[in-house]
């Protein structure tokens, strides 16, 4: 074995392994067979998925749960195109991912040969960077660069397109694998003067609020953030992806703001005199109307990506840098101000406008979610799909530690929840993983039930079955005179039979009085995945809601008495 000459494929895997990766997700085909052959004897685990989109979300879940890049290995043409949704999802949410895509032989490129697709060309707008490797000797350098780019700065997906002949080529050991990226800045230098200005602005504010996003979690800013929040007594709100950076059960945390955020978070934003975004990019689900957004307040923005500063919301001070580094510096110059009056105001919002739903009568999605949270607790990795169930989960599940909440925010990709839970469970075999999925979303990637069953992953799949593409139904209901079109999920399978066909355990909840009992039972089941089919009320809408494009002060708290309120 030792005197066997190494091929491009061997060197590729060795370099990936050296970068700390022990698992790859994917599905093979002609163009990737040379690499698959090298996988056979390699310490890296290959996890066979049932669809490449599944593989991409698994890698994503793996990355979000650990902070390490998720790796996928797929074949050319349709294999590669099947991952585009997952790559876009990762790019939107700044998730480190490395995609190894097999390709037709170099001499066949551009000739419409079998399963040849210009994956680089198709993916330019949705990757952080990409490589088409034409010289086998470039492999180690390109892999090292790909991992470095994917995981530093503002993380993102990097594609390596590897033609079959390049993977097959025998390589001398004298290759150069040093990173050479003159155009890439992993860590911008901090501007201490601006940090001092920001510290003064924060110290003097009467009604400051922090808006914490994914960037803060990615940079590992949770500890210093907690110190600052508690020293300064400043309320915080976190974006959908910022959940968990600062404990949501903490009395200073107002939860998520925005379109379906808590009323008190939105009201606090409308009242504050300073908002400090820490790694949150004023997404349009929060700042739908950038000019009106917190118009009364000063704004500070901390972001590692210069592009984000003043991109949508104009700020008074932009601090470019890693959130943790910036906060650590900032902390030195902060002086606590008396914010007790402001905290009182905010607490009154919280008391007067709580999240609410009817527990009695019909089975409510909110009830099932809240009970799951009560029983499973917060030392759990929760992943979600996209839709009403996702927003209810964001409202009712309190996340107290970073990387315990995995949800597709920027892209809102249906079908993300279940495979991302598989990735998270693979990365953290000893953790409890619960995925909250919609009946519509789940059907987009449910074939991964096989992957979960084969690998005996004890994931709890909580399916909120409202037999609708509920979120779209809600919009049609509220803004299109209930002209429901293309949202009825008539023809849904019997999910219990489906689970059993895959060899997974199934549970069903139909009545609110059964919620506790069934969930408890499901949480005890650890032999493999289980699916809990919660047949919930079909016509509930998610409230509060800020109509699309409107400022936070246009928030509606419940179904309007007069339709006029929506206009």
């Amino acid at each position, binding site marked *: 074995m030792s005197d066997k000459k190494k091929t491009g494929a061997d060197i590729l895997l060795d370099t990936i392994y050296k970068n700390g990766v022990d698992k790859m997700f994917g599905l093979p085909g002609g163009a990737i067979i040379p690499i698959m052959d090298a996988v056979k004897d390699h310490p890296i685990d290959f996890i066979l998925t049932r669809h490449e989109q599944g593989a991409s979300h698994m890698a994503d879940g793996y990355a979000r749960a650990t902070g390490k890049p998720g790796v996928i290995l797929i074949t050319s043409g349709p294999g590669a195109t099947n991952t585009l949704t997952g790559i876009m999802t990762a790019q939107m949410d700044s998730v480190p991912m490395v995609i190894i895509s097999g390709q037709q032989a170099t001499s066949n490129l551009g000739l419409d040969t079998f399963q040849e697709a210009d994956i*680089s060309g198709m993916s*330019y707008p949705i990757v952080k*960077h990409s490589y*088409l490797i034409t010289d086998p000797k470039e492999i180690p350098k390109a892999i090292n660069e790909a991992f470095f780019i994917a995981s530093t700065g503002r993380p993102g997906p990097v594609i390596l397109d590897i033609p079959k002949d390049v993977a097959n080529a025998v390589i001398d050991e004298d290759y150069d694998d040093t990173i050479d*990226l003159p*155009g890439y800045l992993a860590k911008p230098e901090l501007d201490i003067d601006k940090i001092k200005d920001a510290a003064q602005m924060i110290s003097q504010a009467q009604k400051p609020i922090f808006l914490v996003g994914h960037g803060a979690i990615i940079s590992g800013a949770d500890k210093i953030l907690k110190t600052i929040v508690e020293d300064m007594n400043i309320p915080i709100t976190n974006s959908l992806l910022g959940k968990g950076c600062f404990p949501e059960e903490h009395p200073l945390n107002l939860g998520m703001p925005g379109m379906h955020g808590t009323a008190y978070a939105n009201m606090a934003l409308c009242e504050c005199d300073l908002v400090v975004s820490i790694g949150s990019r004023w997404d349009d689900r929060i700042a739908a109307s950038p000019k009106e957004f917190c118009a009364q307040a000063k704004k500070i923005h901390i972001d590692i990506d*210069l592009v984000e500063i*003043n991109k949508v919301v104009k700020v008074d001070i932009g601090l470019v840098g890693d959130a943790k580094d910036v906060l650590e510096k900032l902390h030195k110059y902060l002086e606590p101000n008396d914010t007790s009056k402001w905290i009182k105001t905010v607490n009154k919002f919280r008391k007067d406008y709580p999240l609410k739903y009817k527990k009695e009568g019909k089975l409510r999605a909110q009830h099932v979610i809240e009970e799951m949270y009560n029983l499973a607790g917060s030392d759990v990795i929760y992943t979600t799909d996209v839709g009403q169930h996702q927003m209810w989960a964001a409202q009712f599940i309190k996340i107290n530690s970073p990387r315990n909440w995995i949800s597709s925010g920027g892209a809102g990709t249906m079908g993300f929840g279940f495979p991302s839970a598989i990735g998270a469970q693979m990365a953290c075999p000893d953790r409890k993983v619960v995925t909250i999925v919609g009946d519509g979303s789940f059907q987009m990637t449910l074939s991964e039930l096989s992957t979960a069953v084969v690998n005996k992953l004890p994931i709890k799949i909580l399916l909120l079955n409202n037999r609708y593409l509920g979120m779209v139904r809600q919009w049609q209901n509220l803004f299109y005179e209930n002209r429901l079109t293309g949202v009825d999920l008539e023809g849904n399978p019997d999910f219990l039979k489906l689970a059993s066909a895959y060899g997974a355990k199934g549970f069903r909840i139909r009545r609110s009085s059964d919620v506790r009992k069934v969930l408890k039972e499901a949480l005890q089941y650890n032999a493999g995945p289980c699916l809990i089919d919660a047949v919930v009320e079909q016509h509930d809408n998610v409230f509060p809601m800020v109509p699309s494009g409107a400022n936070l002060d246009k928030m509606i708290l419940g179904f309007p008495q007069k339709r006029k309120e929506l206009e």
Partner: protein
Amino acid sequence: MNNNIEKHSISLYVNNKPGVLIRTSLVFARRGYNIDSLVVSNDSNNPKFSRMNIEATGDTDTLHLMLAQLNRLVDVIHARDLSGEDILQKELSLVKLECPIEKRTELLQIAEAFSAKTIDLTENTITFQIAGSSEKLNRAETLLHGYKIKEIVRTGKVLMTRGEEATA
């Protein structure tokens, strides 16, 4: 929002690699910002890199966003907006005109006024090479529109900063 629609001159220093041009132009295309002219040339001092000069029209705020987006690209070493700065900028155009003998003297006079070179002459056509600022080229073009222009090809603007300062 600053909605000043202006022509901008952008200079980029980039890796000399396949795909760089696409990545760069996508930044413009994504916002519907039109590229008016584009010149790419290898840096003969260091063939690993190339220089690009781009002229584009649009509002200043968007341009600033795009400059940051260009600088974010791994293949872009740096991108700079040189509009409004005192820099060297030149362009070259070739103009082919219909030119029967009776028009020849007239056209040659115009050529002289713009210090254009006659680089081709046939029985019925004359071709000038005009070099200088884009404004000068525009003026020459306007005047020549009084005649029958068969073809015009322009290189697009090339830029360089003055003195010791590096261009991009």
